[in-house]
């Protein structure tokens, strides 16, 4: 490679997709490139930040550093083969992604209603466990963005137990390929339900501990309350979903409002930002929604366990979820579906268009982080540099999902 300055300059020009040009800046403004390698961009995200001292004038996110064209891959894979790829979108909530893909394809096939109840309850159980795991990461990294490292490690400590449960059930710790179209990879191992119940008992005090350390800590509250306020109408207009939208005060949860699987039979509250501290729609309320959702997920898990141990979804000797899967997944030609699901980060939608073959004709994944991130410039203008980090943390993006 040439090392002459001219060559260097040319190379720079080609790999310099900066949006802001030097000539457009005022004297006191400065462009700060945050990322793609930065401790707080949660992956490979680049933020082009125009700053005036500590004040953020504008933020331009640059995505795609983790782009692997999931949609193109999906077009050349059969429906069941897509599941491992779907896992890798939101790698912190792989179970939820699998569930979304499986149910979306079942809806495409028209077999959504025929799923065995035990399969449904196991799916919900797994999804909620994974929601807790995902929220733990989100809360932990959010605390770390605000400078508190200890909650991060406590969260990871407890997430580890969930991963152990998952490994026991599915054989993998992060990318499970457990929920299959029409069924599951296999039934829960014997004793899983009991251990799950113990986990719930173990975990409840840990949530309280976390609240003591972080949630109500004055410094943390000062750092996050009234920061990055996202008004409700802006949130809706930008297509925000999940805790972003609920943090702004809209009681909107697809598990309740556009239900799938057995969610209608389960009892849980939809947590919204109430402005207990700060105003609804600020970073603290988004955080709090997640923290409260953990407890709601524990409630759902307990109800699922009741059903799995004693209720309609009892363990039976002849239950083989793998055999429930259709041997060939071939949706009818021209069928299309947009199915959406409440993921930890919001609405995960799959638009699937079938051409009557084993492979989808077109798959579009509407990932929650992608839409949630698009609101970042809107809410971080005028904030301080330290706030920008906190706002980004409260959006809770997973770059695997943003870039797909």
């Amino acid at each position: 490679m040439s090392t002459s300055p001219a060559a260097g300059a040319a190379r720079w020009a080609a790999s310099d997709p900066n949006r802001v040009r030097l000539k457009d800046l005022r004297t006191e403004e400065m462009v700060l490139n945050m990322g793609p390698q930065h401790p707080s961009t949660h992956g490979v995200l680049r933020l082009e930040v125009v700053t005036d001292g500590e004040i953020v004038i504008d933020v331009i996110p640059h995505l795609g550093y983790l782009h692997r064209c999931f949609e193109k891959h999906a077009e050349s894979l059969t429906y069941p083969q897509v599941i491992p790829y779907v896992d890798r979108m939101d790698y912190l909530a792989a179970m939820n992604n699998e569930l979304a893909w499986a149910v979306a394809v079942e809806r495409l096939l028209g077999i959504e209603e025929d799923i065995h109840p035990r399969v449904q309850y196991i799916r919900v159980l797994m999804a909620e466990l994974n929601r807790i795991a995902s929220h733990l990461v989100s809360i932990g990294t959010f605390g770390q963005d605000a400078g508190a490292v200890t909650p991060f490690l406590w969260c990871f400590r407890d997430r580890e137990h969930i991963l152990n449960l998952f490994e026991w059930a599915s054989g993998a710790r992060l990318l499970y390929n457990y929920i299959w179209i029409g069924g599951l990879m296999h039934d829960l191992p014997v004793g899983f339900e009991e251990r799950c119940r113990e986990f719930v008992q173990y975990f409840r005090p840990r949530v309280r501990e976390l609240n003591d350390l972080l949630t109500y800590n004055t410094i943390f509250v000062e750092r996050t309350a009234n920061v990055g306020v996202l008004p409700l109408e802006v949130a809706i207009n930008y297509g925000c979903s999940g805790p972003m939208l609920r943090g702004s005060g809209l009681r909107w949860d697809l598990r309740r409002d556009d239900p799938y699987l057995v969610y209608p039979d389960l009892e849980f509250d939809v947590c919204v930002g109430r402005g207990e501290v700060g105003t609804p729609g600020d970073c603290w309320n988004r955080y709090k929604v997640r923290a409260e959702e953990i407890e709601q997920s524990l409630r759902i898990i307990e109800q699922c366990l009741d059903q799995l141990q004693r209720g309609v979804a009892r363990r039976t000797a002849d239950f083989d979820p793998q055999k429930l899967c259709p041997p060939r997944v071939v949706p009818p030609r021209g069928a299309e579906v947009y199915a959406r699901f409440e993921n930890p980060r919001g609405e995960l939608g799959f638009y699937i268009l079938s051409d009557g073959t084993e492979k989808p004709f077109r798959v579009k994944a509407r990932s929650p982080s992608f839409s949630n991130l698009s609101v970042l410039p809107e809410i971080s203008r005028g904030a301080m540099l330290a706030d920008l980090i906190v706002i980004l943390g409260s959006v809770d993006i997973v770059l695997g999902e943003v870039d797909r």
Partner: protein
Amino acid sequence: MMAQRGYWANLRTGLRTVWTGLRLTFRHLKQARRRRAPVPIWDPSYFRQPDGQVTIRYPHEAIPVPDTGRYRLHNHIDDCIGCLKCARVCPVDCITIETIKAVEDLGTTSNGQKKRLWIARFDIDMAKCCYCGLCTMVCPTECLTMTKVHDFSEFDRDNMVYHFANLTPEEAEEKRRLAEAAAARPTAPVREGASEKPAAGSGKPAFAPRAVPRGQSAPPGQAGAPATRPAFAPGAVPGPEPEQSGEAEPKAETSSPQAEERKPTPRPFVFKRKES
């Protein structure tokens, strides 16, 4: 911002919450005298471990992997019938199989299925594997399994390719000859993944210069090694049957020193790989 609740109230809350946090962390500091034992999740005492240090000192101790653990793939080749189902279902195409039709009786697998094919090549590139486990689920004889071995890092990426075939190249060549002689129609080896571009050696001569020196340097003492490789030489005209001389033959080897020299074999890139 701070004056939301009044100066003194704020100060009091501040001191109180900071003190709460400090007390909490001090409790954890004291708890660090105890630590969790690395018990597996199916152990009834898993959630009854004492509070305290949770870190597992990994190389010295490890949490046992459950029996369902999906890690390194293993193929019990004696039971493999060469049905290619695993290679077809693999989303990342990390399994490469070559089969030769057997003229003699190969017996049956342990679950009673008739074996009809020699497995000249059964390579799994664990560096590509995404550990989804789909291949193990479709295997009709359950010879392909995912084991609990999860720590198998290598310094050389080529060592991540696992060879499971049990035929030496000479044997494979002989079987192939027999198969051709027996059948009136030619039975070209089925090569999954590379089937669209049969003459790979001639298709991508650009890669050959890199392939040859590396292969030569790897086994210095092997006299027979260069003889198998001329098809890769830069600018060399591919043989009449490049498929067999250039591609299939060296790939059917199983012994490890020779395994290294066939690694650089260009793998023709095709985006849509699994045309059914």
